[in-house]
């Protein structure tokens, strides 16, 4: 299948993701430094090339996009100062908007609406805390209804609830 080069997509990534995108001259230092590229089909340099060319069909549905651990090794070593992780994170934002969000990630994101934290909080965790002489419930959104409501308002104002398919249980 012929690949469609979409310069507008590339411009958008450079504008909203990071303007360093077009500085990349494809040396491959990033791939060679990447702990994920070493053992997966994800290749850092290739992903940046896809973005430069605006090959969005090679990017958005591509599972490889999610194999970056954001370790920043590539950015530290890139001779052209490309902000690689920032670009990858932006591409993921676009992938999420296009509906390519893993269920496991939706689950983590929902925790933010329920607990205000990325992980759940149950009785056993409260007990564990108390056994160490800590307050059972941390003084966070877990201990304050208002704080949790404020947080939810902020996330909803960004449309985060609809992005992850979260509906309040009444």
């Amino acid at each position: 299948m012929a690949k469609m080069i979409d310069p507008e997509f590339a411009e958008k990534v450079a504008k909203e993701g990071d303007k360093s995108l077009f500085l990349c001259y494809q040396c491959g230092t990033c791939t060679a430094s990447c702990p994920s590229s070493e053992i997966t089909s994800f290749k850092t340099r290739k992903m940046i090339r896809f973005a430069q060319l605006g090959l969005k069909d090679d990017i958005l549905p591509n599972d490889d996009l999610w194999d970056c651990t954001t370790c920043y090794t590539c950015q530290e070593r890139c001779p052209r100062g490309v902000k690689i992780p920032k670009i990858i994170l932006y591409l993921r934002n676009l992938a999420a908007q296009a509906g390519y969000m893993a269920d496991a990630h939706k689950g983590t994101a929902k925790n933010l609406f329920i607990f205000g934290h990325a992980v759940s909080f149950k009785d056993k965790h409260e007990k564990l805390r108390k056994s160490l002489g800590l307050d059972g419930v941390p003084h966070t959104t877990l201990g304050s209804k208002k704080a949790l409501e404020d947080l939810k308002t902020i996330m909803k104002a960004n449309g985060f609830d609809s992005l992850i398919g979260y509906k309040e249980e009444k």
Partner: protein
Amino acid sequence: MKFSMFWGCIAPLRYPGIESSTRDVLDALDVEYKDLEGASCCPAPGVFRSFSEPTWLSVGARNLALAESDGNQLMTICNGCYGSLFESNYELRQEPEKLEEVNKILKKVGMKYNGTTEVRHEAEVLYRDMGEDRVRGKVKKELNLNVAVHYGCHFLKPTETRGLGEAEKPTILDEIVEWTGAKSIDYRYKNLCCGAGGGVRARNPELAKAMTLKKYEAVKEAGADCLVTPCPFCHLQYDQAQPEDGLPVLHISQLLGLAFGSDEKRMGFNYHRIDVTPVLEKIK
């Protein structure tokens, strides 16, 4: 009052021994602190920033604004929290339009962020604000341990914005570890990521584990007694994903706690998956 403590998610909710050890260490060093009341998840840099940068930025700004109204510096004990809050703070300070956008959203809950909060990491506070003499002065028990230091990724990187020195051959954590009498040993793959970041632990646990195993083999080969990290998320990954005979994992606060002679029962070692007893036996 000097610091508002941002405890994060993994430490208080999964390894609370890290939180209690930190409290004991800060108390021993006479550091003034309070909890950051009403804080939420930072939100986690890899995961939430991957889904929606604007959500990540405004949730981070809410936490930064809470510390701002305390009038304190914000202290984290986790590389993830540090990375997220440091980076969101940086973006908001660099780009006034973004700060304005975020404040439109914060206004809905009656808040505003002016960009004045300083984001700190416990390890860097120990190194720069406390310093060697003050920390060494509290050591009651010299630790005869061989420690494999794991920096994690978001403590020093990106170095351009962090300003904590370079990340290819850093020494800051090794130095703190050696203040306790322990020896920080060299090993292959010292700078390798734990594998869990960027949402990889949730979405591709096999990949995360492969990176952990590489580290596991390297630290075993080097003859380390334990892994020490400044990050509860790396801590979780190593404690959960190494094989049964993996190295015990200690947060930097737990290591300092042992050296300071803090109450071991408050360090939560009995809740670690990988048995910490060999470390405790060795330092007896």
